[in-house]
């Protein structure tokens, strides 16, 4: 009989004993796999939704986007030749004004064809065309309820955009292409482009973007037409999107957040692995005599190993299957609820790649964490039947098992890197996880040693002494608790500290340094009056202004920018560009020289020093910029230190005045003023310069911090799953330790200890261990948070105490709960029975 089939027969017989002793094993594995499968399924569902609804999200089969300008005649002709319909949209920020009240809005000016795909739903229900036509000779507009409520507008009321009156006709319930606009500040207002002719808001130099949505014949190959458009208009600042990926920003965000969360989920699986390993060890301990009998009957090592490997393998498959069912079906069943929370479409269905990814992680984790105990089991000798002859309990397994573990580990990290698409993120995560586990293990050993030594100091307090003695032992001691709870608490502590410090930086510190308002779209001829109004106001402490244009970096040293700089943010999309004659006050030139004030030679650039280093740029290098459809090549002649952290004015690219002054452009200004004076400034400017848009810095920052908060809470959910797995592991440890506690309680009762005192000792043990685990996790989490805040976000760090205390309290609560659940039986049982059973 072949060894494998024989081992499988033995394994099947053993499995008839049922799942007793494997509940924690199954729960740990199932939970870890379920979390990863659920994250993967949600991610795949969103990606499916974005992909299948690409044309709806985009509002057409394809889109060409321009900054600051409308398409020229050549471009229009090119589109007309290829599309069956072309719809033109202009988007910009502006102020919606009602009397003296003003609010920032994201205006979308549309033509008659909008939307090419889908329908704009309004309340009260009416066709968009009818709503935008207006009433009583005043053009119509529709806006999001948040904006109309903020301005106190009722349907039929009049408001202004720039100098143009509009009548609010309805609220926007659904804007089919909303997701394609990406990250915006300010609620939406929809108007007809035609109605803006006299508003002054779409004049040359103002900040607006145009989008041309195309309805393409079915035979059109998007790949081909996309390439044609890039070839012809790519250098003119045109950006192409098509139905294959209607909202690339969202797709990228979902993909990255999903990958990151799966890595967080992997930490949960690693904690689960600790529980899986403990469960296998406990199970094999009960099988020592069976293994010894098999050895007596002639079973060799490989038969023993295979027998238990197949058993554990079968159970692991069961755990993984349970996890896949929960993690795969859960999001599908909850799909309608989840979809209602998402601002973009999602197609909830089972995703085989997501399930396969979770299954691979689950399988490899189970393999890695069970191989060593299994390898040790084969060392059990026949002599174990009559004496403790398990010599290999604490030694390393045979080299072939070490090699197999290393290979499985490499395979796990490799798979994670492949699935996440970011080897760097995966390696950092793996290193962080390994580092955290090492720190936790070390801390647990130290905690045990301290507890052992402390027993001498607490003589006369028996309950505390018993607790410390127990913590000092290997079995009931600190290691299982710190390892199982530590990782989840560490991640939660790190998230809490990072999030708390970010909020502190944004909420408390930034307003001290940041301006109150950004003003955009100030026309050149409005600048003197604007400056006068602001600088003469005693409540204003500072004002900065600069001309601003937007442009795309198309080439660096004559080579396509993407080739040189990859995906660096400076070459991604269009950037704000300014110009200056003399060196502006406060400019810190760190290399090269600022040009002469009246310089009118070939264009020169003063570039941000940090970004230059990241891009590998040096003085003398050239950059080709596309500004308003025209290309211009300039040489970098100086590098400046630019501080973006204060939310003040900072341009990566500043050109000499002569290079850009003739191009249509507007000015941007930052104003630092007392809060009380802000309303009056806004009123005055709104009256005198209705085209100027004011963006409240705090609103913009709050919008950003809202996104960060959502990422933090998504991560916290992942960490909570890790913590829950840790709690399960803890329950498993407590359950395994129950017989020992029963015996301990019986002995103490025999010696005269009351049940209250024994319970007190058990509780103290849990509290000390939980507090220890919490403290260790807090230390590790705080160190991680400090590093992230200091080196990644570059903000100052201080401990967020409420979160820190919550972490310690969480550790105490979890261990207390797990400990006490398994304390009742030992307390209730009578000593005689316990002591007899030990004889």
């Amino acid at each position: 009989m072949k060894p494998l089939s024989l081992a499988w027969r033995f394994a099947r017989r053993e499995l008839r004993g049922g799942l007793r002793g494997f509940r924690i094993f199954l729960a740990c594995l199932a939970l870890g796999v379920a979390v990863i499968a659920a994250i993967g399924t949600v991610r795949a569902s969103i990606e499916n939704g974005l992909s299948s609804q690409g044309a709806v999200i985009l509002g057409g089969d394809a889109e060409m986007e321009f900054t600051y300008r409308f398409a020229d005649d050549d471009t229009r002709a090119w589109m007309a030749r290829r599309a069956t319909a072309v719809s033109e949209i202009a988007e910009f920020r502006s102020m919606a004004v009602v009397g003296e009240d003003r609010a920032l809005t994201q205006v979308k000016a549309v033509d008659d064809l909008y939307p090419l795909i889908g329908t704009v739903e309004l309340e009260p229900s009416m066709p968009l065309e009818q709503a935008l036509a207006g009433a009583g000779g005043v053009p119509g507009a529709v806006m999001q309820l948040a904006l109309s409520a903020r301005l106190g507008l009722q349907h039929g009321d009049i408001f202004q955009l720039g100098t143009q009156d509009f009548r609010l006709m309805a609220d926007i319930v659904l804007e089919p292409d909303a997701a394609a606009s990406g990250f915006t500040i300010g609620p939406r207002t929809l108007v007809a482009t035609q109605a803006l002719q006299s508003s002054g808001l779409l004049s040359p130099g103002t900040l607006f973007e145009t989008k041309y949505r195309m309805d393409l014949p079915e035979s059109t190959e998007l790949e081909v037409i996309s390439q044609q458009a890039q070839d012809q208009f790519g250098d003119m600042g045109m950006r192409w999107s098509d139905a294959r990926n209607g909202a690339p920003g969202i797709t990228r965000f979902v993909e990255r957040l999903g990958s990151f969360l799966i890595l967080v989920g992997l930490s949960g699986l690693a904690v689960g692995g600790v529980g899986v390993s403990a469960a296998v060890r406990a199970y094999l301990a009960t099988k020592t005599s069976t293994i010894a009998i098999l050895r007596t009957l002639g079973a060799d090592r490989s038969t023993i190993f295979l027998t238990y490997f197949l058993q554990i393998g079968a159970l692991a498959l069961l755990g993984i299957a349970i996890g896949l069912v929960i993690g795969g079906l859960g999001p599908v069943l909850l799909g309608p609820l989840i979809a209602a929370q998402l601002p973009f479409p999602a197609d909830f269905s089972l995703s085989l790649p997501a399930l396969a990814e979770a299954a691979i992680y689950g399988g490899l984790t189970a393999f890695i964490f069970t191989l060593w105990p299994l390898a040790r089991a084969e060392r059990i000798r026949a002599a174990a039947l009559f004496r403790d002859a398990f010599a290999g309990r604490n030694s390393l397994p045979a080299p072939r098992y070490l090699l197999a573990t290393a290979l499985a580990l490499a395979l796990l990290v490799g798979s994670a890197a492949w699935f996440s698409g970011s080897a760097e993120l995966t390696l950092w995560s793996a290193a962080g996880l390994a580092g955290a586990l090492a720190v936790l293990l070390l801390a647990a050993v130290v905690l045990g040693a301290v507890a052992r030594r402390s027993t001498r100091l607490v003589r006369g307090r028996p309950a505390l002494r018993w607790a410390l003695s127990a913590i000092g032992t290997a079995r009931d001691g600190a290691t299982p608790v710190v390892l199982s709870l530590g990782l989840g608490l560490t991640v939660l502590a790190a998230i809490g500290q990072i999030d708390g410090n970010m909020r502190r930086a944004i909420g408390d510190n930034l307003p001290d340094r940041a301006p109150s308002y950004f003003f955009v779209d100030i026309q050149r001829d409005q600048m003197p009056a604007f400056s006068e109004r602001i600088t003469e106001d005693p409540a204003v402490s500072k004002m900065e202004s600069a001309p601003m244009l937007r442009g795309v970096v198309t080439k660096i040293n004559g080579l396509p920018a993407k080739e040189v700089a990859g995906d660096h943010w400076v070459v991604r999309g269009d950037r704000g560009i300014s110009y200056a004659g003399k060196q502006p006050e406060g400019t810190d030139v760190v290399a090269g020289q600022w040009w002469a004030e009246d310089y009118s030679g070939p264009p020169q650039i003063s570039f941000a020093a940090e970004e230059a280093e990241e891009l590998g740029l040096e003085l003398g290098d050239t950059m080709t910029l596309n500004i308003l459809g025209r290309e211009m090549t300039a040489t970098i002649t100086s590098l400046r230190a630019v501080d973006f952290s204060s939310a003040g004015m900072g341009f990566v690219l500043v050109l000499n005045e002569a290079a850009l002054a003739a191009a249509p452009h507007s000015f941007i200004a930052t104003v630092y003023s007392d809060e009380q004076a802000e309303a009056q400034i806004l009123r005055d400017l709104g009256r005198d310069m209705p085209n100027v848009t004011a963006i409240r810095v705090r609103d913009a920052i709050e919008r950003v911090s809202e996104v960060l908060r959502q990422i933090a809470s998504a991560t916290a959910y992942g960490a909570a799953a890790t913590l829950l797995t840790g709690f399960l592991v803890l329950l498993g440890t407590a359950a395994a330790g129950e017989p020992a506690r029963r015996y301990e309680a019986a002995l103490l009762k025999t010696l005269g200890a009351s049940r209250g005192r024994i319970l007190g000792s058990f509780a103290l043990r849990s509290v000390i261990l939980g507090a220890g685990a919490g403290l260790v996790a807090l230390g590790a989490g705080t160190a991680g948070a400090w590093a992230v805040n200091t080196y990644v976000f570059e903000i100052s760090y201080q401990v967020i105490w409420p979160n820190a205390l919550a972490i310690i309290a969480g550790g105490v609560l979890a261990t207390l709960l797990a400990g006490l659940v398994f304390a009742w039986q030992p307390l209730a049982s009578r000593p005689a029975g316990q002591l007899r059973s030990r004889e």
Partner: protein
Amino acid sequence: MTMQTTAPILRLQEASLSLNGNTGVVDILHQIDLEVTAGETLGLIGPSGSGKSSLLMVMGGLEQASGGTITALGQDLTAMNEDALARFRRDHMGVVFQSFHLIPTMTALENVATPLELAGHADAFERAQAELEAVGLGARAGHFPAQLSGGEQQRVALARAVAPRPDILLADEPTGNLDEANGRAIMDLLFDLRDRHGATLIMVTHAPELAARCDRVVHLRDGRLDLAATQKAAE
């Protein structure tokens, strides 16, 4: 009772056993020299702690001797590793314990079939069933150990030990955990099986009436052969 005259099936030369205990190394057996002839029935007797069971385990390769040599069927057990010893037992030895040591997750039939399966017998279950019939437990084949009485469990253990037709049968106080009636029945069965299959039987026992049924009795005291007592018993 007939003494066998053939060559030794088992030979111990200066066999010693030392184990690591909590208080250091403990010497269990001291330079034991012993020969067992094929077909012989040997009784090992002595006070508690004299090393009888340890000697039996050393003979079965269940315990690795610390010194000396143990030769069984011409093969040096002390030169074998754990897997080779396991295979040697599979092919040549059957062991019966005082505590039965049945595998709790297997039925009586599966327990008996296990050594046959390990030896690669395709008809393992048919043979196991026949062995159970032979010990009077054919009807209990599907029962798990926990569903059997002590006497029944020991009969299953006996069936398991003899099923592969071992050359040597080792029995460690096989009646120690049984009442008198069951003990007697098991001993009758053990000797009956030995007679039928012709195996060499080496048995540890406390019971004088059992020792009296053996061809030869060896006395142990403090891990050494008590030659005087052995000689006296022989007379």
